[in-house]
Protein backbone atom coordinates (compact mmCIF):
# COMPACT_ATOMS: atom_id res chain seq x y z
CA UNK A 1 0.00 0.00 0.00
CA UNK A 2 1.13 3.41 -0.95
CA UNK A 3 0.83 5.58 2.13
CA UNK A 4 2.85 8.49 0.92
CA UNK A 5 1.25 9.07 -2.49
CA UNK A 6 -0.76 12.10 -1.44
CA UNK A 7 0.55 13.98 -4.42
CA UNK A 8 -1.38 11.98 -6.99
CA UNK A 9 -5.09 12.16 -6.18
CA UNK A 10 -7.44 9.90 -8.12
CA UNK A 11 -10.80 11.07 -9.37
CA UNK A 12 -12.60 8.81 -6.84
CA UNK A 13 -10.63 10.30 -4.00
CA UNK A 14 -11.26 13.83 -5.14
CA UNK A 15 -15.01 13.32 -5.51
CA UNK A 16 -15.28 11.49 -2.19
CA UNK A 17 -13.39 14.22 -0.34
CA UNK A 18 -15.43 17.04 -1.85
CA UNK A 19 -18.72 15.24 -1.18
CA UNK A 20 -17.70 14.54 2.43
CA UNK A 21 -17.02 18.23 2.99
CA UNK A 22 -20.42 19.16 1.58
CA UNK A 23 -22.09 16.78 4.05
CA UNK A 24 -20.90 18.85 7.01
CA UNK A 25 -23.43 18.86 9.88
CA UNK A 26 -26.08 16.82 8.09
CA UNK A 27 -27.89 14.10 10.11
CA UNK A 28 -29.35 11.60 7.68
CA UNK A 29 -28.15 10.73 4.21
CA UNK A 30 -29.86 8.44 1.74
CA UNK A 31 -27.17 6.89 -0.37
CA UNK A 32 -26.14 4.13 -2.68
CA UNK A 33 -22.92 2.18 -2.92
CA UNK A 34 -19.55 3.23 -4.25
CA UNK A 35 -18.58 6.88 -4.14
CA UNK A 36 -21.39 7.74 -1.72
CA UNK A 37 -20.17 5.02 0.66
CA UNK A 38 -16.70 6.54 0.64
CA UNK A 39 -18.00 10.07 1.05
CA UNK A 40 -20.21 9.28 4.03
CA UNK A 41 -17.56 7.12 5.72
CA UNK A 42 -15.12 10.01 5.37
CA UNK A 43 -17.70 12.54 6.58
CA UNK A 44 -18.26 10.40 9.69
CA UNK A 45 -14.55 10.76 10.44
CA UNK A 46 -14.33 14.47 9.64
CA UNK A 47 -17.18 16.90 8.92
CA UNK A 48 -20.28 15.12 10.25
CA UNK A 49 -19.48 12.72 13.11
CA UNK A 50 -23.17 12.00 13.84
CA UNK A 51 -24.23 11.41 10.25
CA UNK A 52 -26.34 8.35 9.60
CA UNK A 53 -26.56 6.66 6.21
CA UNK A 54 -29.89 5.08 5.29
CA UNK A 55 -29.77 2.53 2.48
CA UNK A 56 -32.50 1.93 -0.08
CA UNK A 57 -32.55 -1.70 1.07
CA UNK A 58 -33.89 -0.63 4.47
CA UNK A 59 -30.72 -0.73 6.57
CA UNK A 60 -30.24 2.01 9.19
CA UNK A 61 -27.17 2.39 11.38
CA UNK A 62 -25.01 -0.15 9.54
CA UNK A 63 -21.71 -1.22 11.09
CA UNK A 64 -20.30 -3.33 8.26
CA UNK A 65 -17.30 -5.54 8.91
CA UNK A 66 -16.18 -4.94 5.28
CA UNK A 67 -16.97 -2.34 2.65
CA UNK A 68 -20.33 -3.36 1.18
CA UNK A 69 -20.50 -4.32 -2.50
CA UNK A 70 -24.22 -3.57 -2.96
CA UNK A 71 -26.80 -1.52 -1.06
CA UNK A 72 -28.21 -4.84 0.16
CA UNK A 73 -24.94 -6.55 1.01
CA UNK A 74 -25.21 -9.06 3.89
CA UNK A 75 -22.41 -7.23 5.73
CA UNK A 76 -24.66 -4.16 5.98
CA UNK A 77 -27.36 -6.14 7.77
CA UNK A 78 -25.38 -8.10 10.33
CA UNK A 79 -24.64 -5.85 13.31
CA UNK A 80 -26.82 -2.99 12.04
CA UNK A 81 -29.20 -1.04 14.29
CA UNK A 82 -32.38 -1.55 12.28
CA UNK A 83 -33.58 -3.23 9.11
CA UNK A 84 -36.84 -1.75 7.87
CA UNK A 85 -39.38 -3.28 5.52
CA UNK A 86 -39.70 -1.40 2.22
CA UNK A 87 -43.04 0.13 3.14
CA UNK A 88 -41.43 1.81 6.15
CA UNK A 89 -38.23 2.79 4.36
CA UNK A 90 -39.92 4.40 1.36
CA UNK A 91 -43.12 5.49 3.13
CA UNK A 92 -42.08 6.64 6.58
CA UNK A 93 -38.40 7.47 6.23
CA UNK A 94 -38.12 8.81 2.69
CA UNK A 95 -41.58 10.18 1.86
CA UNK A 96 -42.02 10.95 5.57
CA UNK A 97 -39.32 13.59 5.21
CA UNK A 98 -36.64 12.12 7.47
CA UNK A 99 -33.76 12.47 4.97
CA UNK A 100 -31.57 15.58 4.97
CA UNK A 101 -29.51 14.77 1.90
CA UNK A 102 -30.11 12.28 -0.87
CA UNK A 103 -27.12 11.31 -2.98
CA UNK A 104 -27.87 10.46 -6.59
CA UNK A 105 -26.16 9.81 -9.88
CA UNK A 106 -27.70 9.96 -13.35
CA UNK A 107 -26.98 9.55 -17.04
CA UNK A 108 -28.16 13.11 -17.80
CA UNK A 109 -28.73 16.26 -15.76
CA UNK A 110 -30.08 19.64 -16.87
CA UNK A 111 -29.64 23.18 -15.52
CA UNK A 112 -32.43 22.72 -12.97
CA UNK A 113 -31.06 19.47 -11.66
CA UNK A 114 -33.70 17.32 -13.33
CA UNK A 115 -32.30 13.82 -13.88
CA UNK A 116 -32.59 11.09 -16.48
CA UNK A 117 -31.74 7.50 -15.60
CA UNK A 118 -34.25 5.77 -17.90
CA UNK A 119 -33.23 5.94 -21.57
CA UNK A 120 -30.90 7.55 -24.09
CA UNK A 121 -33.07 8.37 -27.10
CA UNK A 122 -36.82 7.90 -27.35
CA UNK A 123 -38.43 5.94 -24.49
CA UNK A 124 -40.46 3.83 -26.93
CA UNK A 125 -37.43 2.80 -29.01
CA UNK A 126 -34.39 3.80 -26.98
CA UNK A 127 -30.81 3.82 -28.18
CA UNK A 128 -29.84 2.70 -24.67
CA UNK A 129 -32.19 1.33 -22.06
CA UNK A 130 -30.89 2.39 -18.65
CA UNK A 131 -32.03 0.91 -15.32
CA UNK A 132 -34.78 3.49 -14.67
CA UNK A 133 -35.81 5.21 -11.49
CA UNK A 134 -35.40 2.61 -8.81
CA UNK A 135 -35.90 4.88 -5.83
CA UNK A 136 -34.23 7.92 -7.45
CA UNK A 137 -37.54 9.67 -8.13
CA UNK A 138 -38.49 9.28 -4.48
CA UNK A 139 -35.10 10.47 -3.22
CA UNK A 140 -35.48 13.57 -5.40
CA UNK A 141 -39.08 14.26 -4.39
CA UNK A 142 -38.65 13.77 -0.66
CA UNK A 143 -35.13 14.56 0.54
CA UNK A 144 -34.61 18.04 1.95
CA UNK A 145 -31.90 18.47 -0.68
CA UNK A 146 -30.07 16.30 -3.19
CA UNK A 147 -26.39 16.08 -4.06
CA UNK A 148 -25.48 14.62 -7.43
CA UNK A 149 -22.06 13.10 -7.99
CA UNK A 150 -20.98 12.83 -11.64
CA UNK A 151 -17.67 11.13 -12.41
CA UNK A 152 -17.42 12.71 -15.84
CA UNK A 153 -18.43 16.28 -16.56
CA UNK A 154 -19.14 16.34 -20.33
CA UNK A 155 -21.82 17.68 -22.70
CA UNK A 156 -23.37 14.21 -23.11
CA UNK A 157 -24.30 14.18 -19.43
CA UNK A 158 -24.80 17.91 -18.78
CA UNK A 159 -27.52 18.57 -21.34
CA UNK A 160 -29.80 21.44 -22.33
CA UNK A 161 -32.70 19.01 -22.81
CA UNK A 162 -33.03 15.64 -21.12
CA UNK A 163 -33.97 12.75 -23.43
CA UNK A 164 -36.41 11.73 -20.68
CA UNK A 165 -37.02 13.15 -17.23
CA UNK A 166 -37.01 10.32 -14.71
CA UNK A 167 -36.52 12.28 -11.48
CA UNK A 168 -37.81 15.85 -11.68
CA UNK A 169 -36.82 18.73 -9.50
CA UNK A 170 -39.36 20.96 -7.75
CA UNK A 171 -39.81 23.34 -10.70
CA UNK A 172 -41.12 20.55 -12.89
CA UNK A 173 -43.34 19.27 -10.07
CA UNK A 174 -44.87 22.74 -9.69
CA UNK A 175 -45.42 22.92 -13.43
CA UNK A 176 -47.34 19.65 -13.14
CA UNK A 177 -49.53 21.03 -10.33
CA UNK A 178 -47.84 18.99 -7.61
CA UNK A 179 -46.50 20.59 -4.42
CA UNK A 180 -42.80 19.70 -4.05
CA UNK A 181 -41.58 18.55 -0.63
CA UNK A 182 -37.85 19.18 -1.02
CA UNK A 183 -35.47 21.66 -2.63
CA UNK A 184 -34.27 19.27 -5.35
CA UNK A 185 -30.61 19.24 -6.41
CA UNK A 186 -28.53 21.82 -4.53
CA UNK A 187 -25.02 20.49 -5.30
CA UNK A 188 -23.45 18.74 -8.28
CA UNK A 189 -19.96 17.47 -7.64
CA UNK A 190 -17.95 16.57 -10.72
CA UNK A 191 -14.39 15.93 -11.80
CA UNK A 192 -14.18 19.58 -12.90
CA UNK A 193 -15.73 21.35 -9.93
CA UNK A 194 -18.92 22.08 -8.03
CA UNK A 195 -22.24 23.43 -9.34
CA UNK A 196 -24.78 24.67 -6.83
CA UNK A 197 -28.14 26.34 -6.55
CA UNK A 198 -29.85 27.97 -3.62
CA UNK A 199 -33.27 26.43 -4.13
CA UNK A 200 -36.46 26.45 -6.13
CA UNK A 201 -36.42 28.73 -9.20
CA UNK A 202 -32.64 28.98 -9.37
CA UNK A 203 -30.55 27.32 -12.07
CA UNK A 204 -27.30 25.49 -11.25
CA UNK A 205 -24.26 27.79 -11.20
CA UNK A 206 -20.57 27.00 -11.19
CA UNK A 207 -19.38 27.86 -7.65
CA UNK A 208 -15.98 26.17 -7.57
CA UNK A 209 -13.42 24.55 -9.85
CA UNK A 210 -10.74 22.04 -9.04
CA UNK A 211 -7.19 23.42 -9.10
CA UNK A 212 -6.02 23.87 -12.67
CA UNK A 213 -9.52 23.73 -14.18
CA UNK A 214 -10.59 26.90 -16.00
CA UNK A 215 -14.10 28.30 -16.13
CA UNK A 216 -13.94 27.96 -19.90
CA UNK A 217 -13.23 24.25 -19.64
CA UNK A 218 -16.26 23.72 -17.41
CA UNK A 219 -18.53 25.78 -19.66
CA UNK A 220 -17.38 23.81 -22.70
CA UNK A 221 -18.10 20.56 -20.89
CA UNK A 222 -21.63 21.73 -20.08
CA UNK A 223 -24.43 21.41 -22.62
CA UNK A 224 -26.16 24.59 -21.56
CA UNK A 225 -24.96 28.17 -21.09
CA UNK A 226 -23.60 27.73 -17.57
CA UNK A 227 -23.83 30.65 -15.17
CA UNK A 228 -20.80 31.33 -12.99
CA UNK A 229 -21.16 32.56 -9.43
CA UNK A 230 -19.60 35.90 -8.55
CA UNK A 231 -17.81 34.37 -5.63
CA UNK A 232 -16.23 31.52 -7.63
CA UNK A 233 -13.66 29.64 -5.59
CA UNK A 234 -11.07 26.96 -6.12
CA UNK A 235 -11.67 23.63 -4.40
CA UNK A 236 -9.15 23.02 -1.66
CA UNK A 237 -7.25 19.88 -2.70
CA UNK A 238 -7.65 16.81 -0.47
CA UNK A 239 -5.51 17.10 2.62
CA UNK A 240 -3.01 14.45 3.57
CA UNK A 241 -5.26 13.52 6.47
CA UNK A 242 -8.35 13.15 4.30
CA UNK A 243 -6.42 10.90 1.92
CA UNK A 244 -4.95 8.89 4.79
CA UNK A 245 -8.43 8.27 6.22
CA UNK A 246 -9.80 7.23 2.84
CA UNK A 247 -6.91 4.98 1.93
CA UNK A 248 -6.02 3.45 5.28
CA UNK A 249 -9.29 3.40 7.21
CA UNK A 250 -12.24 3.63 4.84
CA UNK A 251 -11.15 1.54 1.87
CA UNK A 252 -7.84 -0.19 2.58
CA UNK A 253 -8.73 -3.02 0.16
CA UNK A 254 -9.39 -0.53 -2.69
CA UNK A 255 -12.93 -1.71 -3.31
CA UNK A 256 -14.06 1.66 -4.60
CA UNK A 257 -10.95 3.81 -4.63
CA UNK A 258 -9.35 3.84 -8.00
Amino acid at each position, binding site marked *: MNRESTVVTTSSELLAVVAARELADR*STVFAGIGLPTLAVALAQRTTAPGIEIVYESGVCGAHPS*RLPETIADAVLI*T*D*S*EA*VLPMTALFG*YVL*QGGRIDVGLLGAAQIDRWGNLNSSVIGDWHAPKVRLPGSGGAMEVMANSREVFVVMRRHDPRSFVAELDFCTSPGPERALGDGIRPLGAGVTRVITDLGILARAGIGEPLRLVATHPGVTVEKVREATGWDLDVADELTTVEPPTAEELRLLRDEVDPDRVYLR
Partner: protein
Amino acid sequence: MHPDRTMTMRDAIAEFVTDGATVALEGFTHLIPTAAGHEIIRQGRRDLTLVRMTADIVTDQLIAGGCVRKLVSSFVGNSTAGSLGELRRRIETGQPEPLEFEEYSHYGMICRYLAGAQRLPFHPLRSYGGSDVPSVNPAIRKVTSPYPGPGGEPEQVYVVPPVNPDVTIVHAQRADRAGNTQIWGLTGIQAEAVYAARRAIVVVEEVVDDEVIRSDPNRTAIPAHAVDAVVECPRGAHPAFVQGYYDRDGDFYRSWSHISKDPERLQRWLDEWVRGTADHAEYLAKLGEQHWAGLAVGAAWSRPVNYGRRLRQAEKGMSR
Protein backbone atom coordinates in the same frame (compact mmCIF):
# COMPACT_ATOMS: atom_id res chain seq x y z
CA MET B 1 -20.64 9.39 17.53
CA HIS B 2 -23.93 7.93 18.63
CA PRO B 3 -26.22 10.53 20.21
CA ASP B 4 -27.32 9.82 23.79
CA ARG B 5 -31.03 10.61 23.94
CA THR B 6 -31.73 9.25 27.42
CA MET B 7 -33.68 11.61 29.68
CA THR B 8 -35.66 11.41 32.89
CA MET B 9 -39.42 11.12 32.50
CA ARG B 10 -39.83 14.49 34.17
CA ASP B 11 -37.49 16.23 31.72
CA ALA B 12 -38.88 14.48 28.67
CA ILE B 13 -42.48 15.42 29.48
CA ALA B 14 -41.48 18.97 30.47
CA GLU B 15 -39.59 19.47 27.22
CA PHE B 16 -41.83 17.77 24.66
CA VAL B 17 -45.39 17.97 26.02
CA THR B 18 -46.63 21.54 26.09
CA ASP B 19 -50.06 23.01 26.92
CA GLY B 20 -52.37 22.84 23.93
CA ALA B 21 -50.26 20.24 22.12
CA THR B 22 -51.56 17.27 20.16
CA VAL B 23 -50.24 14.20 21.96
CA ALA B 24 -50.52 10.63 20.73
CA LEU B 25 -50.23 7.80 23.26
CA GLU B 26 -50.23 4.39 21.58
CA GLY B 27 -50.07 0.78 22.70
CA PHE B 28 -52.98 -1.61 22.18
CA THR B 29 -53.64 -3.29 25.57
CA HIS B 30 -49.93 -4.18 25.49
CA LEU B 31 -47.22 -1.59 26.30
CA ILE B 32 -49.47 1.27 27.35
CA PRO B 33 -47.44 4.36 28.33
CA THR B 34 -49.20 4.77 31.67
CA ALA B 35 -46.27 6.23 33.57
CA ALA B 36 -45.89 8.93 30.93
CA GLY B 37 -49.59 9.74 31.25
CA HIS B 38 -49.20 10.08 35.01
CA GLU B 39 -46.27 12.44 34.61
CA ILE B 40 -48.36 14.62 32.27
CA ILE B 41 -50.98 14.83 35.06
CA ARG B 42 -48.31 15.61 37.67
CA GLN B 43 -47.00 18.46 35.55
CA GLY B 44 -50.56 19.79 35.12
CA ARG B 45 -50.65 20.04 31.34
CA ARG B 46 -53.84 21.64 29.94
CA ASP B 47 -55.84 21.70 26.72
CA LEU B 48 -54.19 18.72 25.14
CA THR B 49 -55.65 17.03 22.08
CA LEU B 50 -55.18 13.39 22.98
CA VAL B 51 -54.91 10.93 20.09
CA ARG B 52 -55.30 7.30 21.09
CA MET B 53 -56.97 4.40 19.26
CA THR B 54 -58.14 2.61 22.38
CA ALA B 55 -59.02 5.22 24.95
CA ASP B 56 -58.78 3.30 28.24
CA ILE B 57 -57.73 3.81 31.85
CA VAL B 58 -54.83 6.18 31.22
CA THR B 59 -57.10 8.24 28.99
CA ASP B 60 -59.75 8.41 31.71
CA GLN B 61 -57.04 9.49 34.15
CA LEU B 62 -55.72 12.21 31.85
CA ILE B 63 -59.24 13.53 31.32
CA ALA B 64 -59.94 13.48 35.05
CA GLY B 65 -56.57 15.14 35.60
CA GLY B 66 -57.85 18.14 33.65
CA CYS B 67 -55.29 17.72 30.88
CA VAL B 68 -57.50 16.98 27.89
CA ARG B 69 -59.65 19.34 25.83
CA LYS B 70 -60.23 17.01 22.88
CA LEU B 71 -60.06 13.27 22.36
CA VAL B 72 -59.46 11.60 18.97
CA SER B 73 -60.19 7.89 19.28
CA SER B 74 -61.84 4.78 17.85
CA PHE B 75 -62.71 2.88 21.03
CA VAL B 76 -63.61 4.37 24.41
CA GLY B 77 -63.95 1.64 27.00
CA ASN B 78 -62.17 -0.09 29.84
CA SER B 79 -61.29 -3.17 27.77
CA THR B 80 -63.66 -5.98 28.76
CA ALA B 81 -63.66 -4.82 32.37
CA GLY B 82 -66.30 -2.08 32.34
CA SER B 83 -66.64 1.63 31.75
CA LEU B 84 -64.52 4.76 31.86
CA GLY B 85 -66.42 6.83 34.39
CA GLU B 86 -64.89 10.24 33.77
CA LEU B 87 -65.01 9.97 29.99
CA ARG B 88 -68.66 8.95 30.07
CA ARG B 89 -69.58 11.79 32.45
CA ARG B 90 -67.86 14.34 30.23
CA ILE B 91 -69.56 13.10 27.09
CA GLU B 92 -72.98 12.21 28.54
CA THR B 93 -73.46 15.17 30.89
CA GLY B 94 -70.76 17.67 29.90
CA GLN B 95 -69.81 17.77 33.61
CA PRO B 96 -67.59 19.18 35.01
CA GLU B 97 -66.82 20.44 31.52
CA PRO B 98 -67.52 19.10 28.03
CA LEU B 99 -65.02 16.96 26.17
CA GLU B 100 -64.63 17.37 22.42
CA PHE B 101 -64.69 13.96 20.82
CA GLU B 102 -63.60 13.12 17.27
CA GLU B 103 -64.72 9.57 16.52
CA TYR B 104 -63.20 7.09 14.05
CA SER B 105 -63.02 3.35 13.53
CA HIS B 106 -59.77 1.52 14.30
CA TYR B 107 -58.73 1.37 10.68
CA GLY B 108 -59.66 5.01 10.26
CA MET B 109 -57.18 5.86 13.01
CA ILE B 110 -54.55 3.53 11.53
CA CYS B 111 -54.93 5.21 8.13
CA ARG B 112 -54.59 8.64 9.76
CA TYR B 113 -51.28 7.54 11.27
CA LEU B 114 -50.26 5.99 7.93
CA ALA B 115 -51.02 9.24 6.10
CA GLY B 116 -49.21 11.21 8.79
CA ALA B 117 -46.12 8.99 8.69
CA GLN B 118 -46.05 9.14 4.88
CA ARG B 119 -46.78 12.88 4.50
CA LEU B 120 -49.81 11.99 2.38
CA PRO B 121 -52.71 14.46 2.04
CA PHE B 122 -55.17 11.62 2.76
CA HIS B 123 -55.40 7.83 3.02
CA PRO B 124 -58.21 5.83 1.38
CA LEU B 125 -59.97 2.93 3.12
CA ARG B 126 -62.95 0.64 2.51
CA SER B 127 -64.81 1.57 5.71
CA TYR B 128 -67.46 4.23 6.47
CA GLY B 129 -69.80 3.53 3.51
CA GLY B 130 -73.28 3.98 4.99
CA SER B 131 -72.04 4.61 8.52
CA ASP B 132 -73.31 7.54 10.61
CA VAL B 133 -69.76 8.27 11.78
CA PRO B 134 -68.96 10.62 8.84
CA SER B 135 -72.15 12.56 9.68
CA VAL B 136 -70.66 13.50 13.08
CA ASN B 137 -67.06 13.74 11.84
CA PRO B 138 -66.66 16.01 8.81
CA ALA B 139 -62.95 15.11 8.55
CA ILE B 140 -64.01 11.82 6.96
CA ARG B 141 -64.57 12.52 3.25
CA LYS B 142 -64.91 10.84 -0.12
CA VAL B 143 -62.75 10.69 -3.22
CA THR B 144 -63.63 9.35 -6.66
CA SER B 145 -61.06 6.88 -7.92
CA PRO B 146 -59.51 7.74 -11.30
CA TYR B 147 -59.83 4.04 -12.20
CA PRO B 148 -63.19 2.48 -13.06
CA GLY B 149 -64.79 -0.02 -10.66
CA PRO B 150 -65.19 -3.72 -11.50
CA GLY B 151 -68.26 -3.01 -13.69
CA GLY B 152 -66.60 -0.06 -15.40
CA GLU B 153 -68.51 2.44 -13.25
CA PRO B 154 -66.88 5.33 -11.37
CA GLU B 155 -65.81 4.18 -7.92
CA GLN B 156 -65.95 6.23 -4.73
CA VAL B 157 -64.00 5.54 -1.59
CA TYR B 158 -63.78 7.23 1.81
CA VAL B 159 -60.56 8.86 2.94
CA VAL B 160 -59.21 10.22 6.22
CA PRO B 161 -56.75 13.08 6.72
CA PRO B 162 -53.24 12.63 8.16
CA VAL B 163 -52.60 13.07 11.85
CA ASN B 164 -49.26 14.62 12.80
CA PRO B 165 -49.04 14.76 16.60
CA ASP B 166 -46.71 17.29 18.15
CA VAL B 167 -45.41 14.37 20.16
CA THR B 168 -46.03 10.63 20.22
CA ILE B 169 -45.27 8.64 23.36
CA VAL B 170 -44.92 4.86 23.29
CA HIS B 171 -43.72 2.23 25.72
CA ALA B 172 -41.39 -0.60 24.65
CA GLN B 173 -39.33 -3.42 26.06
CA ARG B 174 -35.91 -1.97 25.35
CA ALA B 175 -33.86 0.59 23.47
CA ASP B 176 -30.26 1.66 23.18
CA ARG B 177 -29.26 5.15 24.31
CA ALA B 178 -29.67 6.57 20.82
CA GLY B 179 -33.27 5.38 20.59
CA ASN B 180 -33.21 2.19 18.52
CA THR B 181 -36.27 0.58 20.05
CA GLN B 182 -37.17 -3.09 20.10
CA ILE B 183 -40.66 -4.43 20.65
CA TRP B 184 -41.94 -7.98 20.64
CA GLY B 185 -45.35 -9.44 21.18
CA LEU B 186 -48.00 -7.05 19.92
CA THR B 187 -46.28 -4.27 17.97
CA GLY B 188 -49.52 -2.44 17.20
CA ILE B 189 -49.37 0.94 15.51
CA GLN B 190 -46.40 2.26 17.47
CA ALA B 191 -43.98 2.69 14.58
CA GLU B 192 -46.50 4.62 12.47
CA ALA B 193 -47.53 6.81 15.42
CA VAL B 194 -43.89 7.71 16.02
CA TYR B 195 -43.12 8.42 12.36
CA ALA B 196 -46.27 10.56 12.07
CA ALA B 197 -45.15 12.79 14.95
CA ARG B 198 -42.89 15.83 15.06
CA ARG B 199 -41.26 14.50 18.25
CA ALA B 200 -41.21 11.09 19.88
CA ILE B 201 -40.62 9.86 23.40
CA VAL B 202 -39.91 6.18 23.87
CA VAL B 203 -40.36 4.84 27.40
CA VAL B 204 -38.64 1.50 27.94
CA GLU B 205 -38.39 -1.20 30.54
CA GLU B 206 -34.62 -1.30 29.98
CA VAL B 207 -31.97 0.76 28.28
CA VAL B 208 -29.58 -1.84 26.88
CA ASP B 209 -26.14 -1.93 25.33
CA ASP B 210 -25.82 -1.35 21.61
CA GLU B 211 -24.73 -4.97 21.05
CA VAL B 212 -28.07 -6.26 22.33
CA ILE B 213 -29.97 -4.25 19.74
CA ARG B 214 -27.48 -4.93 17.00
CA SER B 215 -27.60 -8.69 17.50
CA ASP B 216 -31.13 -8.62 16.04
CA PRO B 217 -31.76 -5.55 13.85
CA ASN B 218 -35.08 -6.93 12.50
CA ARG B 219 -36.46 -6.57 16.03
CA THR B 220 -35.98 -2.79 15.93
CA ALA B 221 -39.48 -1.40 15.40
CA ILE B 222 -38.44 2.24 15.73
CA PRO B 223 -35.01 3.38 14.52
CA ALA B 224 -33.05 5.98 16.45
CA HIS B 225 -33.48 8.70 13.81
CA ALA B 226 -37.19 8.89 14.68
CA VAL B 227 -36.69 9.22 18.45
CA ASP B 228 -36.07 12.37 20.51
CA ALA B 229 -36.04 11.00 24.06
CA VAL B 230 -35.41 7.59 25.61
CA VAL B 231 -36.82 7.25 29.13
CA GLU B 232 -35.97 4.20 31.22
CA CYS B 233 -38.99 3.48 33.39
CA PRO B 234 -39.37 -0.14 34.51
CA ARG B 235 -42.95 -1.30 35.07
CA GLY B 236 -44.09 1.92 33.42
CA ALA B 237 -46.98 0.24 31.59
CA HIS B 238 -48.84 -0.92 34.71
CA PRO B 239 -51.71 -1.91 34.81
CA ALA B 240 -51.08 -3.00 31.19
CA PHE B 241 -48.66 -5.82 30.48
CA VAL B 242 -45.26 -6.01 28.85
CA GLN B 243 -44.64 -9.24 26.95
CA GLY B 244 -41.94 -11.21 28.74
CA TYR B 245 -41.65 -8.73 31.63
CA TYR B 246 -44.92 -8.69 33.59
CA ASP B 247 -48.55 -9.62 33.18
CA ARG B 248 -51.69 -7.54 33.01
CA ASP B 249 -53.09 -6.38 36.35
CA GLY B 250 -56.66 -7.57 35.72
CA ASP B 251 -57.76 -6.65 39.26
CA PHE B 252 -56.82 -3.05 38.65
CA TYR B 253 -58.75 -2.95 35.37
CA ARG B 254 -61.83 -4.28 37.15
CA SER B 255 -61.43 -1.84 40.03
CA TRP B 256 -61.19 1.15 37.70
CA SER B 257 -64.90 0.93 36.84
CA HIS B 258 -65.66 1.50 40.54
CA ILE B 259 -63.01 4.13 41.15
CA SER B 260 -64.00 6.16 38.09
CA LYS B 261 -67.72 5.89 38.66
CA ASP B 262 -67.57 8.36 41.56
CA PRO B 263 -65.89 11.63 40.57
CA GLU B 264 -64.74 12.36 44.12
CA ARG B 265 -63.28 8.92 44.59
CA LEU B 266 -61.52 9.30 41.26
CA GLN B 267 -59.95 12.63 42.30
CA ARG B 268 -58.87 11.09 45.61
CA TRP B 269 -57.28 8.24 43.68
CA LEU B 270 -55.39 10.72 41.47
CA ASP B 271 -54.32 12.74 44.53
CA GLU B 272 -53.03 9.66 46.24
CA TRP B 273 -51.47 7.67 43.40
CA VAL B 274 -50.45 10.29 40.84
CA ARG B 275 -50.33 13.85 42.20
CA GLY B 276 -49.22 12.48 45.55
CA THR B 277 -46.25 10.58 44.17
CA ALA B 278 -43.14 12.33 42.96
CA ASP B 279 -42.54 9.95 40.11
CA HIS B 280 -43.19 6.42 38.89
CA ALA B 281 -40.67 4.97 41.34
CA GLU B 282 -42.80 6.30 44.21
CA TYR B 283 -45.95 4.95 42.57
CA LEU B 284 -44.27 1.55 42.40
CA ALA B 285 -43.07 1.76 45.99
CA LYS B 286 -46.64 2.49 47.02
CA LEU B 287 -47.89 -0.56 45.15
CA GLY B 288 -45.27 -2.62 46.91
CA GLU B 289 -42.89 -5.27 45.67
CA GLN B 290 -45.27 -8.02 46.74
CA HIS B 291 -47.81 -6.76 44.21
CA TRP B 292 -45.44 -7.73 41.40
CA ALA B 293 -45.18 -11.37 42.45
CA GLY B 294 -48.74 -11.74 41.22
CA LEU B 295 -47.84 -10.29 37.84
CA ALA B 296 -44.61 -12.22 37.33
CA VAL B 297 -44.20 -14.27 34.17
CA GLY B 298 -42.14 -17.36 33.40
CA ALA B 299 -39.65 -18.00 30.63
CA ALA B 300 -40.44 -18.72 26.98
CA TRP B 301 -37.32 -17.80 25.03
CA SER B 302 -37.21 -17.30 21.30
CA ARG B 303 -34.75 -19.47 19.40
CA PRO B 304 -31.89 -17.43 18.00
CA VAL B 305 -31.41 -17.00 14.26
CA ASN B 306 -28.11 -16.65 12.44
CA TYR B 307 -27.50 -13.31 10.73
CA GLY B 308 -24.24 -14.65 9.30
CA ARG B 309 -20.81 -13.12 9.12
CA ARG B 310 -18.68 -12.72 6.01
CA LEU B 311 -15.68 -15.02 6.23
CA ARG B 312 -12.17 -14.04 5.31
CA GLN B 313 -10.75 -16.05 2.42
CA ALA B 314 -8.66 -18.15 4.79
CA GLU B 315 -11.70 -19.14 6.87
CA LYS B 316 -13.77 -20.33 3.94
CA GLY B 317 -12.25 -23.75 3.39
CA MET B 318 -12.64 -24.57 7.06
CA SER B 319 -16.26 -23.61 7.49
CA ARG B 320 -17.65 -26.71 5.75
